């Protein structure tokens, strides 16, 4: 049994985490969900995650800052940005700053799974990728 993919999901909309948790768990991820950036950053400071999925627009601290902090602490963590209509510019900035990819709201769970599968593949988690692909078909 391979190590399961460690995923952190950060979005200030609680429903996003609530729905993504089972969606990602199904494809073999260990998912931790946060709806505020501060506790998420605390957790990230202590623990390494393979993949971080974060919203760009949040109160207090925005996704770009989260991206910078994560890559500073864990350079090989893959960060996927969630962006809205008005934050496409920010998403480009995020890509320039080393984000793995971005996904625009509204998205379907499967779309995120596909991006995560790509990221997992890049990290060498072949199993996840297969599982995801299998699930999607």
């Amino acid at each position, binding site marked *: 049994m391979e190590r399961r993919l460690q995923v952190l999901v950060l979005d200030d*909309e609680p*429903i*996003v985490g*609530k*729905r*993504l948790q*089972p*969606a990602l768990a199904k494809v073999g991820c260990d998912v931790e969900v946060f709806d505020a950036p501060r506790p998420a950053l605390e957790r990230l400071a202590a623990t390494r995650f393979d993949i971080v999925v974060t919203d760009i*627009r949040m*109160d207090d601290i*925005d996704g770009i800052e989260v991206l910078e902090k994560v890559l500073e602490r864990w350079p090989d963590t893959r960060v996927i940005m969630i962006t*809205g*209509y*008005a*934050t496409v510019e920010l998403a480009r900035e995020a890509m320039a700053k080393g984000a793995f990819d971005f996904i625009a*709201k*509204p*998205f*379907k*769970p*499967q779309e995120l799974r596909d991006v995560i599968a790509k990221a997992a593949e890049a990290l060498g988690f072949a199993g996840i990728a297969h599982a995801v692909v299998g699930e999607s078909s």
Partner: protein
Amino acid sequence: MATEHDEGVPAAPAALDAVSVERAFWDRPSIGIRARLVLGFLSFVGFAVVVIIGAWVLLARLEDRLRFLEAVDRYTMEIQQTRRFEKNYFLHGANLQDMQDHLAEARRLLVAAEPDAAKVLTATELGRMRRHLDGYESALARLVAGAAGPGAAPAERSAIEAALRDNGSQMVAVALELADKERASVNRTLALFKRLPVVFLVLLLAFSVIVADVLARQMVRPLGRLMKTTERIAGGDFTPLTPSRWYRDEFSNLGLALNTMMRELAHRQEVLVQSHKLSAIGTLTAGVAHELNNPMNNITLTAEMLREDYATLSDAQRLEMVEDLVTQVARAQRIVRNLLDFARESEITTERLDLGDVLRAATGLAANQIKLSGAKIAVEVAENLPAIHGDRQALSQVFVNLLINALDAVRKGGRVTITAGPAREAACVQVVIADDGCGIPAHVLPKIFDPFFTTKSKGKGTGLGLSVSLGIVRQHGGDIRVESEPGHGSSFTVVLPAAMVPRVDPAGSGPPTPTPASRPVPRA
């Protein structure tokens, strides 16, 4: 009237008002400036004619007097001549025929002058004159009849002589008196003639001053009123001019033209407000679209997961997900409804407004912009703030404009404070929208309310926001003040008149306007 149909039926109170004002103008009798000038000059001519006729009459009377005086002189001369012959007769026994001739001539002159004499002499004086003449005549007759012979009685002769002398001297005295009287009267008339030009000049001067003053006042007063009106228009007050005089003239036509202009201006202003609102909606839409993505994303994720895991989920889990769907749809609806309320093209309706409500609505509309800008917003509304009278939509447009400007000025993490409270001006309330952003350079400050002036990049601002906002606020009888310190921020103060407290305002109906039974547009 040509533009009447442009107004459209919906703006009923304003249109009716304009129509009734126009009718009030046209119902007045027309007395043009030209007519009044002509009247003024005609009155001068009339005055001159009266004076000339007066002088003519006086001259004619003077002529009569002179002729009469001449007659009196000739009469006196005849009497004196008669008396000279009388003396000759008594001294040298000359003939009586000459006396008789002169006396007859005197009598003829007296009879001829009698109508004129009646004007100068009293009846008793005239009677005395006639009596003396009669007495002299009869004495002479007696002399001719009886005393011609040398045998006449000396007593009789001396009695006749006494009668002649007495009546003769009286006649001369009366005639001289009459001549003196008449001469004095003529002199008086002459003196009057000497004074006449002076009097005429003074009267003419007074008359021309009065006429000039009346005419000038009739020109200057309406001009002043029109000038005041243009100032009022510049201030954004478009209430039509009403007739202030009982007649109509060229100034009334100018007033009507101003009314038409004001109507057009008001119409333009409306269009401008509307077009700027559309651009504001464009700005707001970006935020709304972004904000809308959140509930839509929640709905998508929930619906997808519900479909995916339908079979494995418990009833409770499924119910929870459906509840989420319902609340998220409601949230999306709320976001859209706010924008639609703002966007809806509506007539200007004045109602009693709580300033706090308007500010909350405005910040609600701009909520997404606020979130995106990352600025902190603080809204403070003083307690017991008097209500205002105004158009809810228009005022919220003003505050949204100012708020969006402030948000553009501040950097991320900046502060925008909105404070509503009593204004320095009496019976006014104010809203101060202050930011700690980049501020406005001094050389730009005087231009910021100009239409189409903008410092925003092309496509981002229309340059209409402040101009339209100022227009709206002025229509509400208020004003916008601005203070700015480059580098430290700006503050915009919107001053609005407070609604008077004792105002019975049944919902929906505005102030009681005398509406003459709403009829269709009267003239094509």
